[in-house]
């Protein structure tokens, strides 16, 4: 499914070599139609994925990040995805406080034989990101915005607890 009339968004996918990358390959071999927004980065194991990869991608302008590995208990390296599961869950829960929409990040488990499931995951996630639209940039885009930010920063709006003293 090509990006028809809509602008293509940037979605970064981190896929483990042994299951999800194979799953994506199975989907391709099976000629399942998939949206084309996803750029896949192949990693040895979901345990290789530092949550900061995801943060860095989001900070650098990715509109969405999808992580996929072997199903828990099926890791090629026996326990990599158990660690990954904990880390990714913490990142997902942490994102709301930063104001980054946590729906822009998702992790899931897809095995090498699950081509159909991979198609479903990609389609659903891409649809979700298109609903959210392009991600807001953390850095101002224009000189005017930069100046506005500089003025606000110099005033030091601060957090509610620093502005006034609690009784």
């Amino acid at each position, binding site marked *: 499914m090509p990006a028809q009339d809509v602008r293509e968004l940037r979605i970064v996918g981190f896929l483990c070599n042994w299951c999800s990358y194979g799953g994506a390959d199975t989907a391709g071999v099976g000629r399942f139609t998939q949206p084309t927004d996803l750029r896949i980065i192949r990693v040895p194991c979901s345990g290789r994925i530092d949550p900061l990869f995801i943060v860095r991608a989001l900070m650098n302008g990715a509109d969405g990040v999808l992580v996929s590995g072997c199903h828990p208990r099926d890791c090629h390296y026996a326990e990599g995805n158990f660690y990954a599961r*904990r880390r990714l869950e913490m990142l997902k829960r942490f994102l709301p406080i930063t*104001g980054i*929409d946590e729906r822009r990040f998702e992790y899931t488990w897809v095995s090498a034989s699950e081509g159909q499931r991979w198609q479903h995951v990609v389609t659903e996630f891409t649809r979700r990101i298109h609903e959210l639209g392009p991600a807001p940039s953390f850095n101002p885009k224009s000189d005017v915005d930069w100046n506005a*930010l500089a003025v606000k920063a110099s005033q030091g709006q601060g957090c509610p607890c620093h502005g006034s003293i609690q009784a």
Partner: protein
Amino acid sequence: MSQLDDLKTAIKSRLGELECVIGWEQGYDPLHATPLFIRSEADLDRLIIGPLAVHNLATYLTGWKGKKVGVVVKGCDSRSVIELMNEKLVSRDDVVIFGLCCDGVVSQRKIRAALPADPGFVESVEIGADSLKVTVAGQAATLRLADVQADKCLVCDTPDAIVSDFLIGKAHTPAPAPSLKCQDEFEAKSDAEKFAFWQETMGRCIRCYACRNACPMCVCRDYCIATSRDPLWVSQENLPSENMMFQMIHVSHLAGRCTECGECERACPVDIPLMLLRRYMNKQVRDVFKHEAGKALDQTPPLLTFKVEEERINERGW
């Protein structure tokens, strides 16, 4: 101040076998304390404790690794010491812990805001039972201690050192506030508001790394990935996104390890409320792993281990 005398006696009894004992002394003015490294009994005279002794001295412990040192800790600082021991970054045998029963410490930021004029140099400070009399430029101001207490003390549930060789003072029955008002208010904001807030505050950040250097759990020192050129996690550009990235590195490396001592926020020269991030992450760790860093010896940080069946993580079927 019998507590101080008790502490001095305790330190004196162990000083001979220790490289040094880390405590506090008066800093450049009577309102500000600074860390004191006690090497001889003469240094003991300069030791102070009380609401002005704000620093978490556990930060220094890893620098003395392999040597026997003593450290004076408040309840919150003792959590950092315990977490360092749990991660085998310092050994219990190498540290003599002089634990205090703490009545709370002040926030210099709140004092600054409460004083009529900017306290460039404070002439004198008198500490009462529940008040603080500060004299600046000939003008005396009396502040209620409860008004200028650090945020962490409002929700503190560990005023007394959890693990110690000497426990000085009378143990408390803590009655902490259930949650911090400013935290709840911030969390209730919309994503867009929070995003704009961080853009702005990170625009203020000068990336001096004071938050990292003050943090007792930041032990990588010269190997911190935030300052490495290869891989280049954070570029040298002074952009809000790079400053935020640095904070994300700090928070994610502290996930399940942060003891909420508030040193990062206290050390920040541009008053960025960093604890909003830390407290939120800690809440998530509590919810998912039922873990609080540094509350007991011999715990493993939750991200360094796993369970095959996680009770509170859904397997995310699509």
